[in-house]
């Protein structure tokens, strides 16, 4: 089955989750993502699933903890301040190696901030906002179709690696409408869930725990997770390149910022400037090697974020001294215009004599 429909970002996430087999959703209302719990409240009963509005973000993510321990594909969603509250449990999910999908539709911050699109949670998402030495795949879709497709992928990645997976969108991605193709989830071979708690029928009790008082044992658990993260680093990095083949200046941006940059790059190309875009789709693991290849060909990177500059650290870690990196950002929920980025591109083009 495949037909094209006009869909809002939040609805695309929710519908993709349902079609990916998500049968439990727990969440707490926060703008700009309330359409996800509202969609789930309508849709879950139709597929025999569970929708429950928790009394807090903390309760909701801990309900996720219970449901995934029972072996059910489960999702929660929130926006920036709510995601801060969920961080404690993400640490537990990571080390108990439980799969879950968490959606952050970022808004302006810090603090209560506002409800405008923003990319200020990059550090929190990619550096692990919870305690302890863990990592978590972070996926940043750049269109409504990608929100749909990558939400489906997120469930498979979570199950394959037994890990929480974060989808990092923003208010623009969540609220925007685009025509998308609705399709069923591609078949993926996944490991058997041999960890789930379903009553110790004909077997000994299973324990999902994270307390390891013996330091050597805790060290071993950390190395075990590290080996898994190394595997993720090999298998998961994804990116999209746009007109980078002959580009002297490459804009590095993700999510909504990349959408805005695309308009700017098209205008600059029309004006004869050789510019392109590198868009990381996975923010962790970061697509280092693909970016390094682009750095070898280009002369200047312009890192553009809707923040004061967070992803730029990962860009610099990936490329080292191989290429000069400039930064342009608009924090606080401001949505820059393509022509604004175009002016920055033109200025840099002249200044750096590209």
């Amino acid at each position, binding site marked *: 089955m495949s037909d094209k429909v006009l869909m809002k970002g939040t609805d695309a996430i929710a519908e993709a989750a349902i079609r990916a087999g998500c049968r439990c959703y727990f969440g707490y209302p926060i703008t700009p993502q309330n359409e996800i719990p509202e969609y789930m409240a309508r849709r879950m009963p139709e597929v025999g699933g569970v929708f429950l509005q928790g009394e807090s973000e903390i309760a909701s993510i801990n309900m996720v903890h219970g449901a995934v321990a029972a072996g059910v594909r489960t999702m929660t969603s929130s926006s920036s301040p709510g995601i801060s509250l969920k961080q404690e449990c993400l640490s537990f999910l990571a080390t108990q190696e439980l799969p879950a999908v968490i959606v952050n539709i970022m808004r302006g911050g810090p603090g209560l901030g506002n409800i405008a699109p923003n990319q200020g949670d990059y550090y929190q998402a990619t550096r692990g906002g919870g305690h302890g030495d863990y990592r978590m795949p972070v996926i940043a879709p750049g269109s409504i179709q990608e929100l749909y497709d990558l939400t489906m992928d997120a469930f498979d990645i979570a199950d394959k690696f037994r890990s929480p997976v974060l989808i990092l969108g923003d208010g623009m991605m969540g609220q925007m409408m685009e025509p998308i193709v609705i399709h069923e989830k591609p078949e993926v071979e996944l490991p058997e869930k041999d960890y789930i708690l379903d009553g*110790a029928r004909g077997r000994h009790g299973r324990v999902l725990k994270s307390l390891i008082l013996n330091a050597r044992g805790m060290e071993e658990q950390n190395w075990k997770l590290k080996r898994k993260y190394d595997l993720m680093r090999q298998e998961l990095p994804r990116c999209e390149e746009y007109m980078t083949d002959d580009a002297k200046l490459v804009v590095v941006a993700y999510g909504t910022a990349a959408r805005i940059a695309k308009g700017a790059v098209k205008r600059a190309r029309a004006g004869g400037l050789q510019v392109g875009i590198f868009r990381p789709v996975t923010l962790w693991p970061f697509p280092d090697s693909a970016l390094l290849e682009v750095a070898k060909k280009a002369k200047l990177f312009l890192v553009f974020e809707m923040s004061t500059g967070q992803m730029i650290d990962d860009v610099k870690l990936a490329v080292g001294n191989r290429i000069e990196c400039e930064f342009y950002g608009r924090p606080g929920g401001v949505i820059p215009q393509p022509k604004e980025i175009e002016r920055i591109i033109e200025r840099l083009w002249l200044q750096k004599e590209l």
Partner: protein
Amino acid sequence: MEKIFSRPACMKPAPFHYCPGCGHSIIHRLIGELIDEMNLRENIVCVPPCGCAVLAYDYFDIDMVEAAHGRGCAVATGLKRANPSLMVFTYQGDGDISAIGTAETLHAANRGELITSIFVNNAVYGMTGGQMAPTTILGQKTTTSPAGRSARVEGYPLKITELIAQLDGAAYVARNSLATPAKVNATKKSIKKALEIQQQGIGFSLVEILSPCPTNWKVNALEAFKYLEDVMEKEFNPGVLKDITKSRKA
């Protein structure tokens, strides 16, 4: 020689790490006996607490998932909603259930989640070394109320069991004590009733158990049981606070 007393079959042959005179060992055994008697071992999941009983999984051969401090009732909610055929119980201390996890506990009870909470109240934080708990008695000295708890500074002992009994979703709420062998037997009956309420799908059930902590009360085991009866039971009155099955029958 005929064997007339042994470890419950659902329990592992591991010696308890609990201090001499601690109530956890008794409560563990009561739960173990009930899991055997009610034939629950292959259909029950426990959510242990953060605190001394976090190591409960070393003693029970049943499925368990460790929750973050205070989040037991939320994790149990997720488990039960995802798989309603399971029996689910949380095992929580006073700090877990009535300080850091107050919201999760009250709301799970109010929703009438079909889970059972075993709430062990010893009026101190045991594992962290005897700090003040929400249930610490007025005047009781702890490491963080060294002059004794005063109502003016630290407020009053929190009676979350009474609060829960007010909630429409709570079906069975009882408070028991381990002070004497007869009271231990009564505690077992309450836990059994709570589990039956869950089995019958009636509503949320909770059993608070007043339990001795000789180490942090800084008394010997015998004095601890006396303190339990003379002081704890006076502050926290044992009894069935709510049982909606009674009114149903009537």
